[in-house]
């Protein structure tokens, strides 16, 4: 049943609250990129994708690959809210023997399609799944989320070439274009722009949106679904640390968990946020 945009925004906010709580409890992790991609993950799990939390391996389900694996807290929160596992499990993030480790492990966690953590490989795996879908004549779609720093990996462009070559219109990639990576601004470290013309040149249907705007994410996903012959990439301009004022656009929150005080401040902001 279709959810309203207001409901989806509430879920995205809840996911952000859970990200902050999980990372504070764990004492380590990656808040910046988890917060920037929270809206995209919300749209996919709560509106766009066909999936069944009671039957995680349902053959017809849409597949989601988080290639930028370090932002998995956002996905864990979405999986818990969907009912793949108990919400309480989120507070075991990164603890010994927890199924929820710092990088996605398909062998431990229900609802994950692949393991990731070493960057640049998810789009290739997504191509493989999309090719299999066509060969097996199944009509599932494959979604892959990548970071903007991640697309500096050459393999991403090998995969981009092959997705267009094999006309994988059942494949949709997101670039979480939050403009920051570990060492600083993406444009200073190794500039990836202009993205639009690069992906167009590689044969993709390119959409460019505000990746923290729910309506724009949904519209882009619908357009992607209706595109024939070409894979779609959604260049999602986002804000790293989105939703927490003192984390927004701050490179230092790439891989550092909030302190208890920062956590309280962040939760207060998120809970006060007016929709």
């Amino acid at each position: 049943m279709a959810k309203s945009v207001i409901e989806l925004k509430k879920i995205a906010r809840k996911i952000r609250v859970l990200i902050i709580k999980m990372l504070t409890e764990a004492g380590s992790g990656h808040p910046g990129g988890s917060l920037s991609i929270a809206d995209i993950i919300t749209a996919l799990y709560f509106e766009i994708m066909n999936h069944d939390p009671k039957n995680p391996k349902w053959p017809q389900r849409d597949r989601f690959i988080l290639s930028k694996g370090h932002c998995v807290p956002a996905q864990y929160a979405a999986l818990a809210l969907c009912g793949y596992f108990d919400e309480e499990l989120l507070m075991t993030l990164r603890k010994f023997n927890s199924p929820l480790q710092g990088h996605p492990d398909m062998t431990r966690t229900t609802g994950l399609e692949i393991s990731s953590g070493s960057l640049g490989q998810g789009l290739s795996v997504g191509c493989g799944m999309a090719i299999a879908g066509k060969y097996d004549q199944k009509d599932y779609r494959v979604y892959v989320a990548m970071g903007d720093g991640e697309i500096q990996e050459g393999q991403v462009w090998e995969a981009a070439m092959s997705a267009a070559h094999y006309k994988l219109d059942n494949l949709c990639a997101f670039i979480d274009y939050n403009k920051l990576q570990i060492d600083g601004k993406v444009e200073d470290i190794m500039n990836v722009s202009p993205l639009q013309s690069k992906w167009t040149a590689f044969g993709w249907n390119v959409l460019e949106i505000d990746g923290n705007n729910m309506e724009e994410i949904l519209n882009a996903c619908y357009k992607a679904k209706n595109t024939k012959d070409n894979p779609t990439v959604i260049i999602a301009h986002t804000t790293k640390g989105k939703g927490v004022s003192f984390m927004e656009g701050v490179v230092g929150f790439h891989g550092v968990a909030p302190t208890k005080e920062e956590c309280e401040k962040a939760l207060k902001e998120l809970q006060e946020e007016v929709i």
Partner: protein
Amino acid sequence: MSSLVIGMAKNKFLLNKIEQDFAPYKKILTTLGKSNPRIVVLGADLGNSTEIDEFKNRFPERFFNIGTAEANEINIAVGLAIEGEIPFVHSFGVFITRRVYEQICIQVAMQNINVKLVGTIPGLTSRLGPTHQAIDDLALMRTLPNMTVIDPADATEISQAIPLIAEHQGPVYIRMMRREVPKIFDSKKYQFQIGKAVQIQEGKDIAIITSGIMLNQALTATLKLEKKGIFPTLLHISTIKPIDKPAILKLAKKVKTIITIENHLITGSLGSTIAEIIAEKGFDITLVRMGLQNEFATPGTPDYLFKKYKLTDDNIVDKVISALKKLNNDKLKIKN
């Protein structure tokens, strides 16, 4: 390499003489494709060179050329395997292992994904010099948990191994010979099994252990040694991992010297595995490792290279004789 060994058939598994089979991999892959629609084939712009062109012609809907992008090739195979296909992934042995080690480690081995890696022109059978000679492929693949590693000796082992590899759940790396491939084992009497060594000859004091195509030279060497009245044990191991430990331990109880022979660096594959096993069990055995020592090889024909790097039948004969002399404090007399 072209030696024709006659009189091998004292062992029931062997043909009476070495024959040649043309492109056994091409044939078995196509046969397998007919019987199992889950078999899909990936190539990296080496269709003819890796003998997957016939599969491509027969089953174009499940043949995928990924171009010269091996990292992408491996991970596309992972996606296909997760969805239940059985991908056979091809390139030369160097590129399908060394170049894409991380993709294999993280996405294939770590999750025990059902991807089959086929590396063509192993070791010194490649004429193209060190960039194209897989001399460390077995070592690299052997270090990966969950990975099965196979170095077949001949056309019979290739034809028998491929269906078993398809049935096996989990990743496998197999070295592949192409075009004219020696046929040593009698396919009616021998059955390759993953993880099983085969004893070709039982002798005493000295054991020769071979992997891959080195069985060819070792057989010629044992016949030459026979004429001198010398009978070493000959054990052939085509599964490098999991290795047939019981067979090695059984042999280790009976001999004083083991000579390993491999078409590979002496580090990390057959010789190293044997060293680990005999050392861990505390055997008082001398180990002689024949293979490429600590160096990269040069370009050249296989005949030239196997001579240059001392891996001919005569080199094996010399090693066995010098090991025997050592055991007998140089007092041994040997027929010429």
